[in-house]
């Protein structure tokens, strides 16, 4: 056992060194060119269109074919504020005109994989599709750009974003990895849905083939605009829905890495079996598992019942034990833990259900239930997603927590498709597992999840007070103002109304073959997936 721990410690140290020393260290090691990176992906590709999809099943195999206007710094992906230009030139611009105008200078000489030269008009057409989609065209991140008034191109290599009001959420929104830059020609001539089934980007790799349910293959793009990259000859994204399969693929060296994350036991097994051939990188994860009471249904329209559901959950004990068997760990509020806008522990323990005296919380929960007329043994339907990590593990834990205040949750587990249908369309649930997984850490955009008006909120409620607080938050200019208003927002959403229940924030563990160099873990499984900086030390 001691040997195992020492192996894990060594791997973690190696990972940490990579994370801290980073790319500079990797370059000092002298980059080796060539080779094919094989990696496993645990989810299907619903379509190739980044503007529509929200799943890592699409991002991991498809992102390498595309570029963004700006992106997180691949050498420092943990930073929520370190952005660099991808298709723009120089530094990421600061806002002019009191923070209401952002002017991006675009690189020259960039070509799409079909040979079409890239200009500012392609970027304008792309962002107009994302921010102002025509009726009937889906855009999953339209709400991120509430502050944008217009996007225009005064010349072929300049893009100007005009904002309605200054907002700190703008630049992180632009860096969202789903904002693939499409060719205006494709959008104009082939339509806004063409990219669902076709690929034409300016990314580090060009598309070779996709065998549905099997793999996606890409080869290095010789005219890639980051000169000298990519280092790889190509990549192969292998579809492997079962975790055991993904684990065995890495163990047997049929795949080098999985970019989403494994639970601690899987990490331990790999380290035990492969020793220093495995490097482990770990990070907090901008993803939180929640539960959503359906306020269209009784008794969940009663705030006392929703508060009781929250009070029953011992998050501090859950963090201690669930972190050993699941990909969750950190106790946090509405904002990604550790971010300057996040609640401190002292602030957190004041929130409903975050107190450290669980017996007191549960006694209060029982009192509230009694007051609301909910009897001991009340049974309700609890909808969950048929994905072990972390949904089923946390779901089973929640069932046990609610039982402690006399509530019986009947867990109904469904595969992803029917689960989403229940959550998003039919709304046929009493309480459902829910999540808020975002890419770039952008708390002001990320917390929209709690707004009844948000496209990804399924609680069936309207809370004008919360909407007003959010509007103030969106317009707050200084960090201290943002922080103050964020506490108000958190207090309203969790303490006063208990609209949604936060469980635990995820924790990302990426064990990978040690010969995979240049990739650094980010606090999101959507980030840092261009693969242009990865090389194989074989």
């Amino acid at each position: 056992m001691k040997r195992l721990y020492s192996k894990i410690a060594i791997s973690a140290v190696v990972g940490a060194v990579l994370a801290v020393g980073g790319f500079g260290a990797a370059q000092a090691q002298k980059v080796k060119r060539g080779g094919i990176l094989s990696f496993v992906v645990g989810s299907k590709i619903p379509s190739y269109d980044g503007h529509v999809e929200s799943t890592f099943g699409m991002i991991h195999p498809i992102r390498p074919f595309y570029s963004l206007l700006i992106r997180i710094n691949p050498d420092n992906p943990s930073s929520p504020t370190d952005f660099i230009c991808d298709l723009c030139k120089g530094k990421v611009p600061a806002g002019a005109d009191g923070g209401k105008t952002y002017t991006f200078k675009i690189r020259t000489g960039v070509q799409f994989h079909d040979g079409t030269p890239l200009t500012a008009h392609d970027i304008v057409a792309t962002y107009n599709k994302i921010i102002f989609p025509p009726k009937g065209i889906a855009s999953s991140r339209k709400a991120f750009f509430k502050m944008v008034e217009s996007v225009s191109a005064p010349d072929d290599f300049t893009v100007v974003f005009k904002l309605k009001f200054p907002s700190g959420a703008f630049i992180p929104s632009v860096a969202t990895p789903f904002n693939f830059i499409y060719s205006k020609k494709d959008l104009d001539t082939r339509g806004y849905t063409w990219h669902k089934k076709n690929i034409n980007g300016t990314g580090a790799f060009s598309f070779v083939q996709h065998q549905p349910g099997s793999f996606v293959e890409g080869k290095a793009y010789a005219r890639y605009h980051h000169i000298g990259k990519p280092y790889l000859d190509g990549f192969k994204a292998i579809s492997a829905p079962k975790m055991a399969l993904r684990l065995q693929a890495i163990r047997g060296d049929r795949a080098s890495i999985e970019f989403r994350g494994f639970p601690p036991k899987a990490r331990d097994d790999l380290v035990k079996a492969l020793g220093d051939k495995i490097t482990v990188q770990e990070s907090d994860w901008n993803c939180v598992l929640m539960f959503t009471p359906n306020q269209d249904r009784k008794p969940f329209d009663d705030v006392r019942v929703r508060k009781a559901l929250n009070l029953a959950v011992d998050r501090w004990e859950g963090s201690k034990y669930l972190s050993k068997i699941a990909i969750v760990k950190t106790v946090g509020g509405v904002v990604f833990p550790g971010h300057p806008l996040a609640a401190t522990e002292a602030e957190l323990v004041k929130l409903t259900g975050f107190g450290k005296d669980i017996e007191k919380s549960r006694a209060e929960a029982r009192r509230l239930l009694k007051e609301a007329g909910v009897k001991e043994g009340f049974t309700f339907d609890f909808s969950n997603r048929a994905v072990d990590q972390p949904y089923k593990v946390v779901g089973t834990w929640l069932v046990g927590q609610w039982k402690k205040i006399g509530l019986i949750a009947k867990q109904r587990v469904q595969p992803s498709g029917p689960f989403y249908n229940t959550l998003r369309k039919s709304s046929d649930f009493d309480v459902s597992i829910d999540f808020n997984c975002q890419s770039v850490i952008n708390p002001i955009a990320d917390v929209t999840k709690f707004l009844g008006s948000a496209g990804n909120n399924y609680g069936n409620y309207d809370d004008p007070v919360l909407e007003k607080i959010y509007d103030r938050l969106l317009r707050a200019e200084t960090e201290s103002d943002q922080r103050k208003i964020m506490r108000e927002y958190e207090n309203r959403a969790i303490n006063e109304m208990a609209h949604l229940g936060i469980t635990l924030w995820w924790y990302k563990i990426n064990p990978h073959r040690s010969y995979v160099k240049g990739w650094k873990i980010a606090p999101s499984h959507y980030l840092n997936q261009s693969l242009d900086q990865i090389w194989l030390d074989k």
Partner: protein
Amino acid sequence: MAVASEVQADVKLDELFPAKPWHAVAIDLIRRYPLGAAGAVIVVVMILMAIFADVLSPYDPEENAFEFMLTPPGLQFWMGTDQFGRDILTRLVYGARTALFVGFSCAFIGAFTGLVLGVASAYFGGRFDLIFQRVMDVFMAFPLIIMALAVVSIFGTGTQNVIIAITIPFIPRCARVVRSSALAIREIPYVDAARACGFSDARIILRHMVPNVMAPFLIMISAFVGQAILLEASLSYLGLGVQEPTPAWGLMLQGGAEEYAESAPWVAIWPGIAISLAVFGFNLFGDALRDALDPKLRAQ
């Protein structure tokens, strides 16, 4: 004729066939069908486990006890604990309830429905029999697990839907076997006599034909229980059966097999053994029942 009557009147049946005490009958059966007896023991133990689960188990099968998570087998937890700290022995004992409830429900509902439909099909014959058998052919064209998966995907998961999913494919299987026996019975004169007496079709089917196809029916039931337990475990393993935290063997296997096969193998081994033993037990018992009820096999 008169002599014969006198002889019958003088000799008592008990003297001709002296009754054996129950333990002698049991020993006789064990000698004749040792494997069947072993199967019966397994079945009886399972039933007792299911009935007395509350008494046998010192722990709550559903309550998480994280301080004991993944404890290896030992004095406190004979079969160890799972990732939620729940005692595996307790969950196995309670899991027998789920297995038997699903097994017997599916077997009885499926077999009884198949029995009535099969006998009715044989009795009425003609176009009804022709059309009904083609419908049965369609159902029987699908393997059991595929049919069950299709039904679960329509109705959803959960114990009730699992019972429906497993019962539906059992019906045509039982109906087909029972029909072949009933076809022979239909030709026996007493059925004609009953019809001549003006008995209703329902009375002829239920009171005169059904009791005469009981032997294959009972054998089908015993086989169905084992198959239903296996199917329930398979569906639960695939995440389509009963759901956590309900103790069910297939679910226990699913929860532990993938992640803890190496570091905590007991999580997957015990439910695997339980499923194998239960199916083995019911199959042995069913085979012995077939041998005992089939005159040809009994003579051999």
